[in-house]
């Protein structure tokens, strides 16, 4: 069992050999199989089994204690009539359009600005802009709540003092809450996205931009015609991540608005969590999770194929 030495000088071909060779391959490869085994075991239990069990639960009514009651498609039917869930899905889209374009664009601009040699203090700015990412959302969220308080918050006080603007109901109104949520998200994630953009920018050879400059292009032109096209994969990556993120928003919503006035900031994930752990409707929550899964999957496919096509 203990292979003391192994020679790997002979390359291994396994495609057109008789089966007993395949088994020898497998036997020889017991170490890598062992090394990857924990992942598959973990996935088997916490991934595969759980996903299947969740599917089963979605056809039941169960409070977590007592007998499980099979109810067929009742949960799914209820879901289609569930205005709160539908609202949460709408919110996913709404929030996405509200913060993703702005955040992605800002991240890109900041990355370009920092990357250009003309600005000093690269390290300093990058550090500061990235810093919110390391903060836990409980701390950040409650700080935001304080700052955005309609009557006593510093933001409204400043706006009133400097610009004479009447108090804005940040967390007290439907759109105010959405905007506040987006502010928190952008605050927390801008630095992260900027770092991704920076990495992407660094793969663009500087000769390209320099050549463009020599040809007479001004910075704006080089930005639009060189940087953006070359950054497409990175931008796509960032946007796809954000789409999944906006539907799956949990921490920010949970802390800042709890779902918002009249469910205005409720996201699907928070709704699922509430149904499961506040209402204890495990069956219903599972059905909701599956519908959410399917929709998210479809969206990701659409996004990737649509944008992916336009990448060279």
């Amino acid at each position, binding site marked *: 069992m203990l292979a*003391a*030495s*192994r020679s*790997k000088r002979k390359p*291994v071909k396994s495609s057109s050999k008789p089966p007993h060779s395949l088994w020898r391959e*497998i036997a020889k*490869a017991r*170490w*890598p199989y062992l*090394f990857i085994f*924990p*992942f598959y075991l*973990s*996935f088997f239990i*916490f*991934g595969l089994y*759980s*996903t299947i*069990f*969740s599917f089963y*639960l979605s056809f039941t009514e169960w409070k977590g204690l007592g007998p499980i009651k099979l109810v067929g498609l009742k949960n799914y039917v209820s879901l289609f009539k569930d205005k709160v869930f539908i609202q949460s899905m709408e919110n996913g889209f709404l929030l996405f359009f509200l913060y993703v374009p702005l955040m992605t664009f800002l991240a890109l601009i*900041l990355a370009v*600005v920092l990357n250009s040699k003309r*600005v000093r203090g690269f390290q300093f*700015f990058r550090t*500061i*802009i*990235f*810093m*919110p990412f*390391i*903060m*836990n*959302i*409980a*701390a950040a969220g*409650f*700080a935001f709540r*304080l*700052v955005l308080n309609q*009557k*006593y918050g*510093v933001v409204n*006080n400043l706006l009133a003092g400097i610009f004479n603007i009447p108090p804005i109901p940040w967390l007290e109104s439907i759109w105010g809450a959405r905007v506040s949520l987006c502010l928190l998200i952008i*605050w927390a994630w801008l*630095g992260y996205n900027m*770092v*991704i953009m920076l*990495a992407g920018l660094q793969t663009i050879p500087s000769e390209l931009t320099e050549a463009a400059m020599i040809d007479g292009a001004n910075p704006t032109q080089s930005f639009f015609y060189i940087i953006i096209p070359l950054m497409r994969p*990175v931008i796509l990556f960032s946007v796809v991540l954000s789409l999944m993120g906006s539907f*799956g928003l949990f921490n920010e919503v*949970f*802390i800042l608005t709890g779902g918002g006035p009249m469910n205005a900031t409720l996201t*699907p994930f928070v709704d699922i969590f509430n149904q*499961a752990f506040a209402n204890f409707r*495990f069956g219903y*929550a*599972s059905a909701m*999770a599956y519908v959410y*899964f399917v929709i998210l999957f479809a969206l990701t496919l659409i996004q990737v194929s649509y944008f992916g096509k336009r990448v060279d």
Partner: protein
Amino acid sequence: MFTRRLSRWTGDTLMYALLIGVCTFMLFPFLWMVITSLKTADEIFHIPMIVIPAHPDLHAYIYLMQQYPVFRVIWNTFIIATSGTVLSLFFCSLAGYAFAKFKFPGQKALFSFLLGTMVIPSAVTLVPIFLIMRDLKWIDTILPLIIPGAANAFGIFFMRQYISTISEDIMDAARIDGAGEFTIYWRIIVPIIAPGLTSLGLIFFMGAWNAIMGPLIYLKSPENFTLPLIIRSMTSPVGRTIYDTQMAASVISIIPLLIIFLIFQRRLMEGIAAGAVKG
């Protein structure tokens, strides 16, 4: 020529203005949090607004330490983050090494499968995992927070990319010398990939330190809480929300990560960039 200079100058100013503006936006909540933690309760909600407290002091911190098991909570958070990170780094690097440096039947399929598992949103497995943990009697322990995530696809993917850049020669030499596979991993590979481990480790550590949902579901007794949970427990509908204490707790929750971040920021950002660009 002059207009060229002028436009460059305005361009530069605009850029700096943007950067400084964004930085102010980023720093402002931190600052306000710190200032609030030094105010008295009356000064926090006051009309007209009070920016600088009249007598800034650490009473909120003292109250925090007296009324809440703060050190215990910091310890909990630390244990969870550390053990989770170590466990994850171990399993992910092991598997990443296997995928990167070995050839075995079904490798491609297995790896694609691994990537595919990232598609499943955690919402789907939320309830079943809770039920599993309940039956294992792992509720109110740290186990549900560190075991399911130990061997995760993202980490394995990351490590595979990273390790694939290492040349095979060292491994071959070690094998000739009679070293076992695990020893090769432990004594040769791990030291080489230390920077990558640091980057990934930082990402894991941060995620675990700041996590809310897992602790919310699985940690029940206040003395088992993590920092974010304690902060959240300080808002209560009935009764005065102790904003000053809450902000003090928030400040405390940030400081360790801040220190780690400031020391290791380069590694952290490398890790994030690597995950994105090579993805």
